[in-house]
Protein backbone atom coordinates (compact mmCIF):
# COMPACT_ATOMS: atom_id res chain seq x y z
CA UNK A 1 0.00 0.00 0.00
CA UNK A 2 1.38 3.43 -0.91
CA UNK A 3 0.17 6.08 1.49
CA UNK A 4 1.44 9.15 -0.27
CA UNK A 5 2.27 8.09 -3.80
CA UNK A 6 2.33 10.52 -6.76
CA UNK A 7 -1.17 11.33 -8.02
CA UNK A 8 -0.93 10.93 -11.81
CA UNK A 9 -4.58 9.99 -12.34
CA UNK A 10 -5.42 11.17 -15.89
CA UNK A 11 -9.06 11.87 -14.96
CA UNK A 12 -7.86 14.27 -12.29
CA UNK A 13 -5.44 15.93 -14.72
CA UNK A 14 -8.29 16.47 -17.21
CA UNK A 15 -10.51 17.81 -14.45
CA UNK A 16 -7.80 20.29 -13.37
CA UNK A 17 -7.23 21.36 -17.00
CA UNK A 18 -10.91 22.31 -17.27
CA UNK A 19 -10.47 24.81 -14.39
CA UNK A 20 -9.92 28.30 -15.89
CA UNK A 21 -7.01 29.12 -13.58
CA UNK A 22 -5.10 26.09 -14.90
CA UNK A 23 -6.37 25.81 -18.48
CA UNK A 24 -3.17 27.19 -20.03
CA UNK A 25 -0.99 24.56 -18.31
CA UNK A 26 0.16 21.38 -20.09
CA UNK A 27 -0.07 17.91 -18.55
CA UNK A 28 3.37 18.02 -16.88
CA UNK A 29 2.68 21.46 -15.48
CA UNK A 30 -0.70 20.30 -14.16
CA UNK A 31 1.04 17.40 -12.40
CA UNK A 32 3.49 19.85 -10.86
CA UNK A 33 0.63 22.11 -9.64
CA UNK A 34 -1.39 19.12 -8.44
CA UNK A 35 1.39 18.42 -5.90
CA UNK A 36 0.49 21.75 -4.28
CA UNK A 37 -3.30 21.46 -4.30
CA UNK A 38 -5.26 20.29 -1.26
CA UNK A 39 -8.59 18.61 -1.93
CA UNK A 40 -11.35 19.45 0.59
CA UNK A 41 -14.94 18.24 0.67
CA UNK A 42 -17.65 20.43 2.26
CA UNK A 43 -21.10 19.16 3.21
CA UNK A 44 -24.23 21.18 2.43
CA UNK A 45 -24.40 24.29 4.69
CA UNK A 46 -20.82 23.85 5.89
CA UNK A 47 -18.83 27.08 6.21
CA UNK A 48 -15.67 27.25 4.10
CA UNK A 49 -14.45 30.50 5.66
CA UNK A 50 -16.00 33.44 7.46
CA UNK A 51 -16.01 37.18 6.87
CA UNK A 52 -13.07 38.63 8.83
CA UNK A 53 -11.01 35.40 8.97
CA UNK A 54 -7.36 35.77 8.02
CA UNK A 55 -7.14 34.44 4.47
CA UNK A 56 -4.36 32.05 3.55
CA UNK A 57 -5.39 30.64 0.18
CA UNK A 58 -7.78 30.34 -2.76
CA UNK A 59 -10.51 27.69 -3.05
CA UNK A 60 -11.42 26.37 -6.51
CA UNK A 61 -14.69 24.50 -6.91
CA UNK A 62 -14.36 21.13 -8.64
CA UNK A 63 -17.97 20.00 -8.19
CA UNK A 64 -20.95 21.35 -6.27
CA UNK A 65 -21.65 24.97 -5.42
CA UNK A 66 -20.53 27.53 -2.86
CA UNK A 67 -22.36 30.72 -1.94
CA UNK A 68 -20.60 33.91 -0.91
CA UNK A 69 -22.43 36.11 1.58
CA UNK A 70 -20.58 39.43 1.67
CA UNK A 71 -21.57 42.06 4.21
CA UNK A 72 -20.70 44.86 1.79
CA UNK A 73 -23.44 45.52 -0.79
CA UNK A 74 -20.85 46.45 -3.40
CA UNK A 75 -19.42 42.92 -3.47
CA UNK A 76 -22.73 41.16 -3.99
CA UNK A 77 -22.52 41.48 -7.79
CA UNK A 78 -19.10 39.90 -8.00
CA UNK A 79 -19.53 37.06 -5.53
CA UNK A 80 -22.70 35.08 -5.19
CA UNK A 81 -22.79 31.50 -6.33
CA UNK A 82 -19.47 29.88 -7.15
CA UNK A 83 -19.83 26.82 -9.36
CA UNK A 84 -17.44 24.23 -10.84
CA UNK A 85 -14.25 25.77 -12.26
CA UNK A 86 -14.78 29.05 -10.39
CA UNK A 87 -12.68 30.22 -7.51
CA UNK A 88 -13.08 32.23 -4.33
CA UNK A 89 -10.59 33.96 -2.03
CA UNK A 90 -7.94 34.80 -4.66
CA UNK A 91 -6.84 37.95 -2.83
CA UNK A 92 -5.54 35.80 0.03
CA UNK A 93 -2.80 34.61 -2.32
CA UNK A 94 -1.28 38.08 -2.21
CA UNK A 95 -1.72 39.11 1.42
CA UNK A 96 -3.15 37.79 4.68
CA UNK A 97 -5.89 40.39 4.82
CA UNK A 98 -9.33 39.54 6.22
CA UNK A 99 -11.80 37.61 4.11
CA UNK A 100 -14.47 39.96 2.71
CA UNK A 101 -17.33 37.45 2.74
CA UNK A 102 -18.58 34.32 4.45
CA UNK A 103 -18.55 31.38 2.04
CA UNK A 104 -20.89 28.43 2.60
CA UNK A 105 -21.40 25.22 0.62
CA UNK A 106 -25.00 25.16 -0.66
CA UNK A 107 -24.64 21.54 -1.71
CA UNK A 108 -21.99 18.88 -1.17
CA UNK A 109 -18.95 20.55 -2.74
CA UNK A 110 -15.50 19.32 -3.67
CA UNK A 111 -12.82 22.02 -3.81
CA UNK A 112 -9.09 22.22 -4.33
CA UNK A 113 -7.22 24.81 -2.29
CA UNK A 114 -3.98 26.53 -3.19
CA UNK A 115 -2.20 27.91 -0.15
CA UNK A 116 -0.43 31.28 -0.21
CA UNK A 117 3.03 29.97 0.79
CA UNK A 118 2.86 27.19 -1.79
CA UNK A 119 1.75 29.63 -4.49
CA UNK A 120 4.72 31.86 -3.60
CA UNK A 121 7.07 28.90 -3.82
CA UNK A 122 5.57 28.01 -7.22
CA UNK A 123 6.31 31.53 -8.44
CA UNK A 124 9.96 31.27 -7.43
CA UNK A 125 10.56 27.60 -8.22
CA UNK A 126 8.78 27.28 -11.53
CA UNK A 127 8.34 30.67 -13.08
CA UNK A 128 6.68 29.32 -16.26
CA UNK A 129 3.81 27.76 -14.34
CA UNK A 130 3.74 30.59 -11.81
CA UNK A 131 3.33 33.26 -14.47
CA UNK A 132 0.54 31.35 -16.27
CA UNK A 133 -1.41 30.81 -13.04
CA UNK A 134 -0.75 34.38 -11.90
CA UNK A 135 -2.07 35.76 -15.23
CA UNK A 136 -5.28 33.74 -14.93
CA UNK A 137 -5.81 34.84 -11.33
CA UNK A 138 -5.13 38.42 -12.41
CA UNK A 139 -7.82 38.08 -15.10
CA UNK A 140 -10.34 36.79 -12.58
CA UNK A 141 -9.63 39.61 -10.13
CA UNK A 142 -9.79 42.15 -12.95
CA UNK A 143 -13.14 40.76 -14.19
CA UNK A 144 -14.59 40.88 -10.68
CA UNK A 145 -13.39 44.45 -10.16
CA UNK A 146 -15.05 45.55 -13.41
CA UNK A 147 -18.28 43.80 -12.38
CA UNK A 148 -18.27 45.68 -9.07
CA UNK A 149 -17.51 48.98 -10.76
CA UNK A 150 -20.27 48.45 -13.33
CA UNK A 151 -22.73 47.58 -10.58
CA UNK A 152 -21.88 50.83 -8.84
CA UNK A 153 -22.07 52.68 -12.16
CA UNK A 154 -18.57 53.98 -11.63
CA UNK A 155 -17.37 52.69 -14.95
CA UNK A 156 -20.33 52.75 -17.33
CA UNK A 157 -18.41 52.96 -20.60
CA UNK A 158 -15.71 50.34 -20.07
Amino acid sequence: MRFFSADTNSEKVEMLQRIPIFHTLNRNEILEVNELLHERVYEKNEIVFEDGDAGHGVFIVVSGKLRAEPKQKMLKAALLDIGPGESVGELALFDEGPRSATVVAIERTVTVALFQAEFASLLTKNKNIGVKVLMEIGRIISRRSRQILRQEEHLPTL
Partner: protein
Amino acid sequence: MKPFPQPGATTLLVVILSTCLLLFVFQKIIWIVLPVLLAMMLYYILRPVVESLVAQGMHRGAAVKIVCLTQLVVAGSILVLALVLLSKAGSWQTSLDRYLAGGENLLSKTTLSLEKVSPMFKNMNLSEKVDDQHVQDFRDEFVAKNLLPITLGLLEWLPSLLLVPYITYFMLNDSMRLKKYIIKSVPNAFFEKALLLFSRLDDSLQNYFQGLLLLTFLDAFCLGLGLEVLGISHAIMLGLACAVLAWIPYVGSIIGCIVVVLVAATDFPDQTWTAYACLALFLAVRMLDDFVFLPMTIGRKLNVHPLLSVLMLFLGATVAGATGLFLALPLFGVMAVIGEAVAQVVADQGLRARHRAARQLAAAAQPV
Protein backbone atom coordinates in the same frame (compact mmCIF):
# COMPACT_ATOMS: atom_id res chain seq x y z
CA MET B 1 -9.48 40.99 10.82
CA LYS B 2 -10.35 38.94 13.89
CA PRO B 3 -7.46 39.32 16.36
CA PHE B 4 -5.51 36.18 17.23
CA PRO B 5 -5.43 35.50 20.97
CA GLN B 6 -1.86 35.79 22.24
CA PRO B 7 -0.46 32.64 23.91
CA GLY B 8 0.01 33.08 27.65
CA ALA B 9 2.06 31.58 30.46
CA THR B 10 0.07 28.32 30.41
CA THR B 11 0.99 27.77 26.76
CA LEU B 12 4.65 28.44 27.54
CA LEU B 13 4.55 25.95 30.43
CA VAL B 14 2.90 23.30 28.25
CA VAL B 15 5.49 23.93 25.50
CA ILE B 16 8.38 23.56 28.00
CA LEU B 17 6.89 20.39 29.50
CA SER B 18 6.19 18.80 26.13
CA THR B 19 9.71 19.67 24.96
CA CYS B 20 11.14 17.94 28.07
CA LEU B 21 8.89 14.92 27.52
CA LEU B 22 9.93 14.64 23.87
CA LEU B 23 13.60 15.02 24.83
CA PHE B 24 13.18 12.14 27.28
CA VAL B 25 11.58 9.95 24.58
CA PHE B 26 14.13 10.99 21.95
CA GLN B 27 16.99 10.05 24.26
CA LYS B 28 15.58 6.49 24.43
CA ILE B 29 15.37 6.22 20.64
CA ILE B 30 18.40 8.30 19.76
CA TRP B 31 19.50 5.62 17.24
CA ILE B 32 16.65 6.72 14.94
CA VAL B 33 16.34 10.36 16.07
CA LEU B 34 19.94 11.19 15.11
CA PRO B 35 19.73 9.90 11.50
CA VAL B 36 16.35 11.61 11.04
CA LEU B 37 17.79 14.86 12.38
CA LEU B 38 20.86 14.63 10.16
CA ALA B 39 18.59 13.79 7.20
CA MET B 40 16.46 16.86 8.00
CA MET B 41 19.56 18.99 8.10
CA LEU B 42 20.65 17.62 4.70
CA TYR B 43 17.10 18.06 3.38
CA TYR B 44 17.03 21.76 4.23
CA ILE B 45 20.55 22.25 2.88
CA LEU B 46 19.93 20.34 -0.36
CA ARG B 47 16.37 21.53 -1.03
CA PRO B 48 17.46 24.90 -2.47
CA VAL B 49 19.82 23.01 -4.82
CA VAL B 50 16.97 20.76 -6.02
CA GLU B 51 14.69 23.78 -6.41
CA SER B 52 17.23 25.69 -8.46
CA LEU B 53 17.66 22.67 -10.76
CA VAL B 54 13.85 22.43 -11.13
CA ALA B 55 13.67 26.17 -11.84
CA GLN B 56 16.17 25.63 -14.67
CA GLY B 57 13.75 23.19 -16.27
CA MET B 58 14.90 19.84 -14.89
CA HIS B 59 12.27 17.30 -13.84
CA ARG B 60 11.96 17.17 -10.03
CA GLY B 61 12.66 13.40 -9.86
CA ALA B 62 15.84 13.76 -11.93
CA ALA B 63 16.99 16.76 -9.87
CA VAL B 64 16.48 14.82 -6.61
CA LYS B 65 18.37 11.82 -8.01
CA ILE B 66 21.34 13.95 -9.15
CA VAL B 67 21.57 15.76 -5.82
CA CYS B 68 21.23 12.52 -3.84
CA LEU B 69 23.88 10.75 -5.94
CA THR B 70 26.29 13.61 -5.25
CA GLN B 71 25.38 13.37 -1.59
CA LEU B 72 26.05 9.59 -1.65
CA VAL B 73 29.51 10.12 -3.16
CA VAL B 74 30.36 12.64 -0.40
CA ALA B 75 28.89 10.36 2.31
CA GLY B 76 30.82 7.39 0.87
CA SER B 77 34.07 9.37 1.00
CA ILE B 78 33.41 10.32 4.63
CA LEU B 79 32.63 6.68 5.45
CA VAL B 80 35.87 5.46 3.84
CA LEU B 81 37.80 8.13 5.75
CA ALA B 82 36.09 7.08 9.01
CA LEU B 83 36.90 3.41 8.38
CA VAL B 84 40.53 4.27 7.63
CA LEU B 85 40.67 6.21 10.90
CA LEU B 86 39.05 3.35 12.80
CA SER B 87 41.51 0.86 11.32
CA LYS B 88 44.28 2.92 12.89
CA ALA B 89 42.64 2.76 16.32
CA GLY B 90 45.70 0.87 17.61
CA SER B 91 47.84 3.97 17.18
CA TRP B 92 45.32 6.16 18.99
CA GLN B 93 46.82 5.19 22.34
CA THR B 94 50.25 6.48 21.31
CA SER B 95 48.73 9.73 19.96
CA LEU B 96 46.58 10.18 23.05
CA ASP B 97 49.62 9.59 25.27
CA ARG B 98 51.57 12.19 23.30
CA TYR B 99 48.84 14.83 23.47
CA LEU B 100 48.08 14.19 27.15
CA ALA B 101 51.80 14.46 27.88
CA GLY B 102 51.79 17.78 26.03
CA GLY B 103 48.83 18.91 28.14
CA GLU B 104 50.53 17.76 31.33
CA ASN B 105 53.66 19.69 30.37
CA LEU B 106 51.61 22.85 29.72
CA LEU B 107 49.77 22.45 33.02
CA SER B 108 52.95 22.06 35.08
CA LYS B 109 54.61 25.02 33.32
CA THR B 110 51.53 27.14 33.92
CA THR B 111 51.33 26.24 37.61
CA LEU B 112 55.05 26.95 38.06
CA SER B 113 54.58 30.37 36.43
CA LEU B 114 51.57 31.05 38.65
CA GLU B 115 53.56 30.08 41.76
CA LYS B 116 56.32 32.51 40.74
CA VAL B 117 53.81 35.32 40.22
CA SER B 118 51.70 34.88 43.35
CA PRO B 119 52.56 33.47 46.82
CA MET B 120 48.92 32.37 47.13
CA PHE B 121 49.43 29.74 44.42
CA LYS B 122 52.77 28.74 45.98
CA ASN B 123 51.05 28.04 49.29
CA MET B 124 48.56 25.85 47.45
CA ASN B 125 51.40 23.63 46.08
CA LEU B 126 49.74 23.41 42.71
CA SER B 127 52.81 22.12 40.86
CA GLU B 128 53.19 19.20 43.25
CA LYS B 129 49.53 18.30 42.82
CA VAL B 130 49.87 18.35 39.03
CA ASP B 131 53.07 16.37 39.10
CA ASP B 132 51.64 13.61 41.20
CA GLN B 133 50.34 10.33 39.93
CA HIS B 134 46.82 11.61 39.14
CA VAL B 135 47.42 12.57 35.51
CA GLN B 136 49.32 9.35 34.76
CA ASP B 137 46.58 7.28 36.42
CA PHE B 138 43.86 9.10 34.51
CA ARG B 139 45.70 8.55 31.21
CA ASP B 140 46.27 4.79 31.78
CA GLU B 141 42.76 4.23 33.10
CA PHE B 142 41.12 6.20 30.28
CA VAL B 143 42.98 4.29 27.57
CA ALA B 144 42.44 0.89 29.14
CA LYS B 145 38.79 1.38 29.96
CA ASN B 146 37.41 3.68 27.28
CA LEU B 147 39.30 3.33 24.01
CA LEU B 148 37.74 0.02 22.96
CA PRO B 149 34.16 0.97 24.00
CA ILE B 150 34.50 4.31 22.13
CA THR B 151 35.70 2.52 18.97
CA LEU B 152 32.91 -0.06 19.20
CA GLY B 153 30.39 2.70 19.97
CA LEU B 154 31.39 4.53 16.79
CA LEU B 155 30.97 1.30 14.80
CA GLU B 156 27.55 0.70 16.39
CA TRP B 157 26.36 4.02 14.93
CA LEU B 158 27.29 2.97 11.40
CA PRO B 159 23.98 1.19 10.47
CA SER B 160 21.95 4.11 11.83
CA LEU B 161 24.02 6.66 9.94
CA LEU B 162 23.62 4.65 6.73
CA LEU B 163 19.93 5.56 6.95
CA VAL B 164 20.73 9.28 6.54
CA PRO B 165 21.06 9.43 2.71
CA TYR B 166 18.08 7.09 2.36
CA ILE B 167 15.80 9.25 4.52
CA THR B 168 17.09 12.42 2.83
CA TYR B 169 16.20 11.05 -0.62
CA PHE B 170 12.60 10.37 0.40
CA MET B 171 12.30 13.71 2.17
CA LEU B 172 13.44 15.52 -0.97
CA ASN B 173 11.22 13.42 -3.20
CA ASP B 174 8.05 12.99 -1.15
CA SER B 175 7.91 15.75 1.49
CA MET B 176 5.09 17.60 -0.30
CA ARG B 177 3.03 14.43 -0.65
CA LEU B 178 3.60 13.54 2.99
CA LYS B 179 2.45 17.02 3.95
CA LYS B 180 -0.70 16.66 1.80
CA TYR B 181 -1.33 13.25 3.35
CA ILE B 182 -1.15 14.68 6.88
CA ILE B 183 -3.20 17.78 6.01
CA LYS B 184 -5.91 15.54 4.54
CA SER B 185 -6.72 14.25 8.02
CA VAL B 186 -7.22 17.78 9.42
CA PRO B 187 -10.90 18.83 9.72
CA ASN B 188 -12.07 21.57 7.33
CA ALA B 189 -12.47 24.14 10.10
CA PHE B 190 -8.77 23.94 11.02
CA PHE B 191 -7.46 23.35 7.51
CA GLU B 192 -6.07 26.83 6.83
CA LYS B 193 -4.61 27.03 10.35
CA ALA B 194 -2.89 23.66 9.83
CA LEU B 195 -1.41 24.79 6.52
CA LEU B 196 -0.16 27.95 8.16
CA LEU B 197 1.35 25.89 10.98
CA PHE B 198 3.16 23.63 8.49
CA SER B 199 4.46 26.65 6.65
CA ARG B 200 5.77 28.25 9.87
CA LEU B 201 7.35 24.97 11.04
CA ASP B 202 9.01 24.54 7.68
CA ASP B 203 10.34 28.10 7.84
CA SER B 204 11.59 27.65 11.44
CA LEU B 205 13.37 24.37 10.66
CA GLN B 206 14.83 25.68 7.42
CA ASN B 207 16.09 28.80 9.19
CA TYR B 208 17.51 26.75 12.06
CA PHE B 209 19.37 24.22 9.92
CA GLN B 210 20.60 26.72 7.34
CA GLY B 211 21.61 29.04 10.20
CA LEU B 212 23.46 26.17 11.90
CA LEU B 213 25.33 25.38 8.68
CA LEU B 214 26.27 29.03 8.17
CA LEU B 215 27.39 29.28 11.80
CA THR B 216 29.51 26.12 11.42
CA PHE B 217 31.10 27.54 8.28
CA LEU B 218 31.88 30.90 9.96
CA ASP B 219 33.27 29.15 13.09
CA ALA B 220 35.38 26.73 11.03
CA PHE B 221 36.72 29.59 8.90
CA CYS B 222 37.66 31.82 11.86
CA LEU B 223 39.16 29.01 13.94
CA GLY B 224 40.94 27.41 10.97
CA LEU B 225 42.44 30.74 9.91
CA GLY B 226 43.48 31.63 13.47
CA LEU B 227 45.07 28.24 14.11
CA GLU B 228 46.84 28.34 10.73
CA VAL B 229 48.31 31.76 11.61
CA LEU B 230 49.50 30.35 14.97
CA GLY B 231 51.16 27.47 13.08
CA ILE B 232 49.10 24.63 14.63
CA SER B 233 49.17 21.37 12.69
CA HIS B 234 45.95 20.30 10.84
CA ALA B 235 44.52 23.79 11.48
CA ILE B 236 41.61 23.53 9.02
CA MET B 237 40.61 20.03 10.19
CA LEU B 238 40.76 21.14 13.83
CA GLY B 239 38.74 24.28 13.08
CA LEU B 240 36.06 22.23 11.30
CA ALA B 241 35.96 19.59 14.07
CA CYS B 242 35.58 22.30 16.74
CA ALA B 243 32.84 24.04 14.73
CA VAL B 244 30.91 20.75 14.45
CA LEU B 245 31.46 20.00 18.16
CA ALA B 246 29.97 23.43 18.91
CA TRP B 247 26.59 22.02 17.76
CA ILE B 248 26.40 20.72 21.33
CA PRO B 249 25.98 23.99 23.22
CA TYR B 250 28.65 24.85 25.83
CA VAL B 251 29.93 21.26 26.37
CA GLY B 252 30.94 20.87 22.71
CA SER B 253 32.85 24.16 22.73
CA ILE B 254 34.72 23.22 25.92
CA ILE B 255 35.73 19.83 24.46
CA GLY B 256 36.84 21.55 21.23
CA CYS B 257 38.87 24.09 23.19
CA ILE B 258 40.61 21.38 25.26
CA VAL B 259 41.51 19.44 22.09
CA VAL B 260 42.98 22.54 20.40
CA VAL B 261 44.99 23.53 23.51
CA LEU B 262 46.33 19.94 23.83
CA VAL B 263 47.41 19.96 20.16
CA ALA B 264 49.06 23.38 20.57
CA ALA B 265 50.84 22.29 23.77
CA THR B 266 52.14 19.18 22.00
CA ASP B 267 53.16 20.98 18.78
CA PHE B 268 55.03 23.68 20.70
CA PRO B 269 56.13 22.17 24.05
CA ASP B 270 58.57 25.01 24.75
CA GLN B 271 56.28 27.90 23.75
CA THR B 272 53.44 27.93 26.25
CA TRP B 273 52.25 31.23 24.82
CA THR B 274 51.02 29.37 21.67
CA ALA B 275 48.62 27.30 23.78
CA TYR B 276 47.46 30.47 25.57
CA ALA B 277 47.03 32.17 22.18
CA CYS B 278 44.86 29.21 21.07
CA LEU B 279 42.78 29.62 24.22
CA ALA B 280 42.43 33.34 23.52
CA LEU B 281 41.49 32.60 19.90
CA PHE B 282 38.84 30.15 21.08
CA LEU B 283 37.40 32.66 23.54
CA ALA B 284 37.41 35.37 20.85
CA VAL B 285 35.56 33.12 18.37
CA ARG B 286 33.13 32.13 21.14
CA MET B 287 32.43 35.83 21.84
CA LEU B 288 32.07 36.49 18.13
CA ASP B 289 29.68 33.53 17.99
CA ASP B 290 27.53 34.64 20.91
CA PHE B 291 27.35 38.35 20.07
CA VAL B 292 27.61 38.47 16.26
CA PHE B 293 27.25 35.16 14.40
CA LEU B 294 24.56 33.47 16.53
CA PRO B 295 22.17 36.45 16.60
CA MET B 296 22.80 36.90 12.85
CA THR B 297 22.02 33.27 12.04
CA ILE B 298 20.10 31.01 14.43
CA GLY B 299 19.02 33.41 17.18
CA ARG B 300 17.28 35.83 14.87
CA LYS B 301 15.47 33.01 13.09
CA LEU B 302 14.24 31.01 16.10
CA ASN B 303 13.24 34.09 18.06
CA VAL B 304 13.75 32.47 21.46
CA HIS B 305 14.47 34.73 24.45
CA PRO B 306 18.07 34.27 25.73
CA LEU B 307 16.86 33.46 29.26
CA LEU B 308 14.53 30.79 27.90
CA SER B 309 17.36 29.40 25.74
CA VAL B 310 19.59 28.93 28.78
CA LEU B 311 16.72 27.48 30.83
CA MET B 312 15.90 25.01 28.05
CA LEU B 313 19.56 23.99 27.76
CA PHE B 314 19.71 23.23 31.50
CA LEU B 315 16.41 21.37 31.40
CA GLY B 316 17.49 19.49 28.26
CA ALA B 317 20.78 18.44 29.87
CA THR B 318 18.98 17.32 33.04
CA VAL B 319 16.33 15.32 31.20
CA ALA B 320 18.38 13.85 28.36
CA GLY B 321 22.09 14.58 28.91
CA ALA B 322 24.12 15.36 25.78
CA THR B 323 21.12 14.52 23.55
CA GLY B 324 19.12 17.10 25.47
CA LEU B 325 21.81 19.74 25.07
CA PHE B 326 21.92 19.19 21.34
CA LEU B 327 18.17 18.99 20.76
CA ALA B 328 16.74 21.34 23.38
CA LEU B 329 16.77 24.57 21.34
CA PRO B 330 15.54 23.33 17.94
CA LEU B 331 12.88 21.17 19.59
CA PHE B 332 11.74 24.06 21.77
CA GLY B 333 11.53 26.26 18.66
CA VAL B 334 9.32 23.69 16.91
CA MET B 335 7.16 23.06 19.99
CA ALA B 336 6.71 26.82 20.49
CA VAL B 337 5.30 27.19 16.95
CA ILE B 338 2.98 24.19 17.46
CA GLY B 339 1.98 25.38 20.94
CA GLU B 340 1.12 28.84 19.65
CA ALA B 341 -1.04 27.43 16.83
CA VAL B 342 -2.84 24.96 19.13
CA ALA B 343 -3.44 27.70 21.72
CA GLN B 344 -4.99 29.89 19.04
CA VAL B 345 -7.30 27.07 17.90
CA VAL B 346 -8.30 26.22 21.48
CA ALA B 347 -9.00 29.88 22.26
CA ASP B 348 -10.93 30.47 19.02
CA GLN B 349 -14.48 29.52 19.99
CA GLY B 350 -15.80 30.40 16.53
CA LEU B 351 -13.46 27.94 14.86
CA ARG B 352 -14.39 25.19 17.32
CA ALA B 353 -18.09 25.90 16.85
CA ARG B 354 -17.61 25.69 13.08
CA HIS B 355 -15.90 22.31 13.52
CA ARG B 356 -18.75 21.00 15.72
CA ALA B 357 -21.32 22.16 13.15
CA ALA B 358 -19.35 20.53 10.32
CA ARG B 359 -19.28 17.23 12.23
CA GLN B 360 -23.03 17.34 12.71
CA LEU B 361 -23.52 18.10 9.00
CA ALA B 362 -21.20 15.23 8.02
CA ALA B 363 -23.06 12.86 10.36
CA ALA B 364 -26.42 13.96 8.92
CA ALA B 365 -25.12 13.45 5.36
CA GLN B 366 -24.09 9.83 6.09
CA PRO B 367 -26.53 7.31 4.52
CA VAL B 368 -28.50 5.50 7.24
